[in-house]
C-alpha cells in the first residue's frame, strides 16, 4: 500500500436537513472537502461511498457529481467501519497508479428522511430467528454484549457512563455538536431506560448529515498547499453480522485483530498515540474497543475510563468532537471519526479543544452489531 495523504475533510450541514437527501449531503460534504484540500471536482478520479440509501452508491454519487471517467470505484458495505476500510483500498489503488484524488463520502437523512428499514420480507435465513424476538436493534444487541462484559469483568453502569460524560465535555467545545450541555454520571444513570443496561445517554443520538475525506497520492500532494497527514496503517475484519448471538465472544471485538495489525504497519506503539477517535455508537462500543486496541488490559476498560482518562486534559483524548454520543450520528459514523482525527493532527483548533502537538492519531470504525472493525493510524508528517 502507498501511504495516501489526507488533503481535505468536511461535513455537510448536520442535525436536521429536511430539504436534502442522502446524496445531497454526500455531495455537499464532498465539494467542501475538495475546497478544504484546494482541489476541484475535475481533479477527482476515484469515489468510495458506503451507507447511502442506494445499492450502487458509488455510481450514483459519480453521476450526481458528473465525474469524468472515475477509475477507482468502491462501495464495499461493512457498516460504520466502511470508510476506514476504504483507506487501505485507496492506498492500493494509488500504489498501482490507478487514482490520484479519491473522495470517501457519506450522506444520510437518518433523522428526518423516510425510514431506511428494509421491508419486512426476509432477506436472510436468520431473520426468522431474530425478528420474532422483538430485539430492539442495534441498541439491544450492543446492550447484550455490554451485559456479558459486566458479568465477566465486573464492569459497571457507572463506568460506561464515564464515557458519555467525558465525550460530552469535548462536545461542549464544539459548536457543531448536537448536545453541548455538560452531564454527570448520575444524569446518564437516570436517563430513560432503552435496553438494559443502556439508558438513553449510553446511546448515540440520531441526526442527518454527511462527511467526506479527500485522499491524494504523494505526487498530487506535492502540488497542493496542505499539511501532510498520511494514512500509515489500515486493517479490517468482521466477526458476524445479522445476529449478536453469532458473535463468537461478545466481550472481544475484531479490533483485537485490526489494532495490532494497523499499529504494526504504522510502526507505532500505544505511547505514540496522541489522540484517539473511537466509534461510539454506544458507550460500550468505545469501552470494549479501547481494550481490544490494547490501550488497557482486557476487562479493565471500565477502570481505564474512570476519572476522565479520555476527557479534555486526560491521558488519552478521545472523540474530541463529541463523538456519536453528543456531536452527530447519521447512521454510519465512521467518516466523522476520520475527519476529526485529521483536524486534530493538522492543529485546526485553538485552546483546550486542540490536543497539544498531536502527531499520531488512531481512528477506529465499528459496523453492524459490533460486527466489523477497521483501524486506521494517521500521522502528521513534518
Amino acid at each position, binding site marked *: 500500500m502507498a501511504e495516501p495523504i489526507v488533503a481535505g475533510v468536511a461535513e455537510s450541514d448536520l442535525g436536521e436537513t429536511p430539504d436534502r437527501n442522502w446524496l445531497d449531503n454526500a455531495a455537499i460534504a464532498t465539494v467542501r472537502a475538495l475546497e478544504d484540500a484546494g482541489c476541484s471536482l475535475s481533479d477527482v478520479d476515484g469515489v468510495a461511498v458506503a451507507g447511502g440509501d442506494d445499492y450502487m452508491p458509488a455510481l450514483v454519487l459519480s453521476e450526481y457529481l458528473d465525474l469524468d471517467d472515475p477509475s477507482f470505484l468502491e462501495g464495499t458495505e461493512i457498516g460504520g467501519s466502511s470508510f476506514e476500510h476504504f483507506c487501505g483500498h485507496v492506498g492500493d489503488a494509488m500504489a498501482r497508479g490507478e487514482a490520484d484524488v479519491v473522495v470517501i463520502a457519506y450522506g444520510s437523512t437518518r433523522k428526518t428522511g423516510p425510514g431506511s428499514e428494509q421491508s419486512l420480507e426476509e432477506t436472510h*435465513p436468520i431473520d426468522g*430467528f431474530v425478528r420474532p424476538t*422483538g430485539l430492539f436493534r442495534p*441498541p439491544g444487541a450492543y*446492550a447484550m454484549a455490554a451485559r*456479558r462484559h459486566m*458479568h465477566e469483568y465486573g464492569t459497571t453502569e457507572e463506568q460506561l457512563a464515564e464515557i458519555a460524560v467525558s465525550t460530552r465535555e469535548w462536545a461542549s467545545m464544539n459548536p457543531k455538536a448536537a448536545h453541548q450541555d455538560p452531564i454527570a454520571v448520575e444524569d446518564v444513570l437516570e436517563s430513560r431506560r432503552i435496553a438494559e443496561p443502556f439508558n438513553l445517554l449510553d446511546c448515540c443520538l440520531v441526526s442527518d448529515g454527511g462527511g467526506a475525506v479527500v485522499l491524494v497520492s504523494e505526487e498530487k500532494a506535492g502540488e497542493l498547499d496542505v499539511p501532510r497527514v498520511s494514512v500509515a496503517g489500515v486493517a479490517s475484519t468482521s466477526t458476524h453480522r445479522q445476529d449478536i*448471538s453469532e458473535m463468537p465472544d461478545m466481550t472481544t471485538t475484531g479490533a483485537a485483530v485490526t489494532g495490532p495489525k494497523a499499529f504494526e504497519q504504522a510502526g507505532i506503539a500505544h505511547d505514540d498515540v496522541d489522540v484517539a477517535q473511537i466509534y461510539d455508537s454506544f458507550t460500550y462500543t468505545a469501552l470494549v474497543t479501547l481494550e481490544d486496541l490494547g490501550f488497557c488490559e482486557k476487562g479493565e476498560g471500565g477502570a481505564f475510563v474512570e476519572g476522565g482518562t479520555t476527557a479534555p486534559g486526560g491521558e488519552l483524548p478521545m472523540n474530541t468532537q463529541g463523538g456519536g454520543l453528543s456531536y452527530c450520528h447519521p447512521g454510519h459514523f465512521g467518516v466523522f471519526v476520520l475527519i476529526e482525527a485529521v483536524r486534530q493532527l493538522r492543529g485546526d483548533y485553538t485552546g483546550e479543544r486542540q490536543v497539544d502537538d498531536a502527531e499520531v492519531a488512531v481512528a477506529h470504525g465499528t459496523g453492524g452489531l459490533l460486527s466489523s472493525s477497521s483501524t486506521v493510524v494517521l500521522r502528521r508528517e513534518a
Partner: protein
Amino acid sequence: MSAPVEDRREEWDGPVPVPTGATAPFWAATLEGELRYQQCDCGNRQLYPRAVCTACGAEDPPFAASEGVGTIYTYTVCHVPGEPGFAERTPYVVGAVELAEGPRLLALIDADPESLEVGAPVAVTFWQVSDDAAIPVFVPA
C-alpha cells in the same frame, strides 16, 4: 424431547418466521415441540440452519434434536419495542441462550427481568405464531 407448544396465533402481532430451504426442517419440528440444530458428520454443531457445514463444507448437514435446555449467555431488557407487535409487551427480555449441545440461540425469555442472571439455567417452550412455525421461548429451568 417434546416441549410445550402454546398456540398464540390469535394474539401474535409480531414478525413470523418464513420457513424456506435449509430452515424448513427446523421450523417444522417446532410445531411438534422439538428444538433442532444441525449436527454434521464431521462433529460440528450449528444454528441457524445453513445449506453448508461451517466446519467442513458438507452440504445440507443433518439435523439432531436438542434436549432443549441451556444457560443464559447474556440478555437485555428491552424498554423500547424493536418490532411491530411488541409495544404492549415492554419491558420484555431477549437473551442469547447457550444450548447444552453448544449452539447459541437468540430468543425471548419469558421471565421476570428481576429474577434473571447471566448463567441461569433455562428450558425451551414454544409459541406457535403461524401455521408454519412456533418460535422458541425460554423459561427459567
